[in-house]
């Protein structure tokens, strides 16, 4: 049997009930934006531990780099210069990445059995071996996090270092954070710690400080302490009330069986196309043109 911390609670496109004898603690990462200095040590640690290297890009007129999440960048810092009150400048720096929703839209949307799992500790993980590259997880994610790799056409995102957590270590980003802006522990402990931080922030003049743990996705296992919890969109467009796309509910409800039949027909048609016309090969120029676009 797998490590306790890797007990699986839910699997994509699977109806077999999960084992429930053991009830591991729910974990959470707490990102305290009021302590973040945007040093990007977490980005570096993420690349190192997970052995991914994004390309050396260009400067696009901001401190952000890489500019967006990708199959090789599972976390990026988003820098926002805002003036919540006229003349009062703030530089809000938000570590972006998977929120590990308790009710994960990606998992719900995924049609491939076992490509997305939710561990009993709350971590939502992609098992790329089972990924068919359909991109439905992207549609399903209310935070626009998963990215398809151009290299293998599979979806990637932050694993919350499920491999480290499984053996009792904190995620790599937490370990690297020099200011304690990133913390990891049980969701209960993190919530309690956040309360203290919020009290402190309120005493320092941030009346609307609060915890970001949105209910629309059942709460998240990555939470933010925000100075302006009433205006999460200040933080580079963090959604105020994230919800799973209605398309996913549609798919999970009535549309799924119909689409299943549809997919079967497509597969059948593909098979006949293959035996009658041979494999479908795109020519290289077409692919290059697409990449340039």
């Amino acid at each position, binding site marked *: 049997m797998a490590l306790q911390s890797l007990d699986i609670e839910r699997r994509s496109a699977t109806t077999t009930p999960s084992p429930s004898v053991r009830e591991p603690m729910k974990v959470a990462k707490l990102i305290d934006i009021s302590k973040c200095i945007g040093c990007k040590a977490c980005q570096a640690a993420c690349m190192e531990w997970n052995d991914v290297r994004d390309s050396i890009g260009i400067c*696009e007129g901001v401190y952000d780099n890489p500019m967006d999440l990708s199959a090789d960048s599972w976390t990026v810092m988003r820098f926002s210069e805002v003036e919540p009150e006229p003349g009062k400048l703030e530089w809000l720096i938000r570590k972006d990445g998977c929120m590990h929703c308790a009710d994960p839209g990606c998992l719900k949307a995924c049609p491939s059995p076992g490509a997305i799992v939710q561990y009993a500790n709350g971590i939502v993980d992609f098992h790329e071996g089972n990924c068919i590259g359909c991109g439905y997880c992207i549609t399903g994610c209310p935070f626009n996090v998963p990215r398809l790799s151009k290299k293998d056409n599979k979806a990637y995102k932050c694993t919350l270092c499920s491999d480290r957590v499984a053996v009792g270590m904190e995620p790599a980003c937490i370990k690297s954070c020099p200011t304690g*802006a990133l913390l990891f522990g049980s969701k209960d402990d993190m919530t309690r710690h956040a309360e203290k931080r919020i009290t402190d922030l309120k005493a320092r003049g941030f009346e609307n400080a609060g915890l970001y743990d949105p209910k629309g996705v059942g709460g998240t296992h990555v939470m933010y302490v925000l100075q302006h919890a009433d205006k999460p969109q200040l933080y580079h467009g963090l959604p105020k009330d994230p919800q799973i796309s209605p398309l996913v509910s549609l798919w999970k409800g009535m549309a799924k069986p119909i689409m299943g039949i549809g997919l079967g027909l497509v597969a059948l048609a593909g098979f006949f196309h293959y035996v009658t016309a041979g494999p479908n090969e795109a020519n290289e120029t077409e692919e290059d043109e697409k990449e340039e676009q």
Partner: protein
Amino acid sequence: MTNHWVDIKNANLVLIMGGNAAEAHPCGFKWVTEAKAHNNAKLVVVDPRFNRSAAVADYYAPIRTGTDIAFLGGLINYLLANDKIQHEYVKHYTNAAFLVNENYTFAEGLFSGYDAEHRKYDKSTWSYAMQPDGYAAVDETLQNPRCVFNLMKQHYARYTPEVVSNICGTPKEQFLKVCGMIAETSAPDKTMTIMYALGWTQHTVGSQMIRTAAMVQLLLGNVGMAGGGVNALRGHSNIQGLTDLGLLTNQLPGYLTVPGEKETVYEEYLAQRSLKPTRPGQMSYWQNYPKFFVSLMKAWYGKAATKENNFCYDWLPKLDKMHDVLQVFEDMHQGKMNGYFCQGFNPLASFPNKAKIGGALAKLKYLVVIDPLATETSEFWQNFGEYNDVDPAQIQTEVFRLPATCFAEEDGALVNSSRWLQWHWKGAEPPGDAKGDAEIMAGLYLRLRDFYRKEGGAFPDPILNLTWDYAILDRPSPEELAKEYNGRALADIPDPKDPTKMLLKAGQQLDGFAQIQDDGSTACGCWLFAGAWTEKGNMMARRDNADPSGLGETLGWAFAWPANRRILYNRASCDPAGKPWDPKRAIVHWNGSKWTGFDVPDFKPDSAPDQGMEPFIMQPEGVARLFALDMMAEGPFPEHYEPFETPIGTNPLHPKVVSNPAARVFKDDLAQFGTAKEFPYAGTTYRLTEHFHFWTKHAVINSVLQPQQFVEVGEELAKEKGIQDGALVKVRSKRGYIKAVAVVTKRIKPLMVNGKKVHTVGVPLHWGFKGVAKNGYLANTLTPFVGDANTQTPEYKSFLVDIEKA
């Protein structure tokens, strides 16, 4: 640092000014978050840019680059005018009550004794009024108009909030808000810590900026206190070690000094440096100078150094003048140098006015670069297009590259900002033929010695007699070198209190510098490091983080110079009777028979408070100096002078003396300074978290995180110039230009200075033409070749530029 990194957590207020700790020292910055979390501390940031430190600050105030003395001078005026000083501390522990020489004056921007022709001062009037008994005169009532306190008050009375705002561009309310927050720490149970770095040192008045900060901390009673002090955040992992070991042309190890060319008499050299107390009952610790000097010479020359030959004093070079890097490159540029050894140093990138540096290197016959990386300096002769547009055919310099190890490939100690010597162990073997720096130096030395042995030469003695007793001659080990700088007994050392006992037997390692002798019976390579490697072993390798005080006084962790002391001047944390000013910050105290506590007392251990010895034992007068006497080049009180390239073209305080009258400037460089008419914007260079100087552009991950050169421009200036965010721009100074991507930001705002709107252009410096990041221009193409009057550190932080769409 007077204090140390961990101690920052004890502050009530953290002032980051002249530095950007969150960005340039992110790991140390954790102690600021600790202070906020556990001490309810406030963080104030004063900087030309709203930077990453400001992002997490409780309060931010903008300031024009290069005007920090005006700001801090205004703060001194505020503290005095509003009576927000710690009176008892100021009265007893500073020279506030001392009377000043009656001929000392300050008028129209100049102190008494100025010699315009040589751009320097005759400093004889910058002294105390002396009593007939040979001691300095004092007036403890502080009523005498010629006492330091009143002269200081008078000097800074000119720095009103309006004057400060007019010079610095800081809005008056914001300046006063910062003053108010700082003033609260004048209470004996409140402290402020000041964290500064190159944002203060890299000005023509850099040293005086730091001095002004020290004066503020003395007036507030924050020096010697846990959570207080003036804390320099050093820019390289071992730059503290560099200064400690005297790697500057006028320094010997442990802040001993190289004799000047007129100091040909040994006894006079020593007398000049071992000053007698100028107040009764004071320690004047530098009276021990001869011990440290003699033991250094014994470490270097062993048996050849004898009492009879003045311990080889005549072998030391005698300085005609400072030969700092600006002077060296000036000489090189004039064709006065043939060869240059460049070890762990990238001057083409790191020194101002790249065109001059490149031109100077091209006049050498040979250049030796000792470095782990292929640096811009080692490739200065190659054409890299616009980034380095030279004609290799015209450059005859022969370049040798000696691959060195990097810090992770060798054992040894680094001295951090906290003055801790922390031993580290190598994490990897060096690649290829890379050799440690000590091995490379040993190889050079042994070959030179062979030449001297075979061929004689003009002056072979200092080379032939150098102690060289390492087990493997061409590879001195870090352990051997560490033991050498700690020092050892060369003969049995009797205990002065009980001559029947021995302090040390011949051959034993010293326990500390108190055992160092002036008769040649001890050898010590650096007196400040004595205690780092004793008979008990390597003290630098200790890793006990027990902290019985709860104040971060971990005496079992590594070794801190001097004497494993963690907070300097800690005697001043107690009142004159020896009781801590603040019981929560009790680090040392007088227990009735001796000084004791959680830290190593910075005082004579058995000197009872009623004996009247004052806490600043290194000074002949025993107290800290608000009035610096003759120790600074440009005046005993810091005065605001404009950067050499000033955007306002005048000094509102004294239009006839605009910039530092004693600053280091060479004649040919004067013509290379721009004016505001031609170059209207204030330029400043700085570092980013993602990179370390010019090294990490060679590393993939750092380059992913910050791949390409950029400059920062405020929104208003960008709009005026039609510059779009992300567009390519050209930034020009009188000395050259760079092209970079524009980061258009709200974080740099124009400031109203002397009736004129001044815009700032920010120039991060990490890029060049070697490495894996996108190639870029060396930022120091733009900066001026002019240095601080005391340290000769170039003015990288304040210069003039123009900017346009590329």
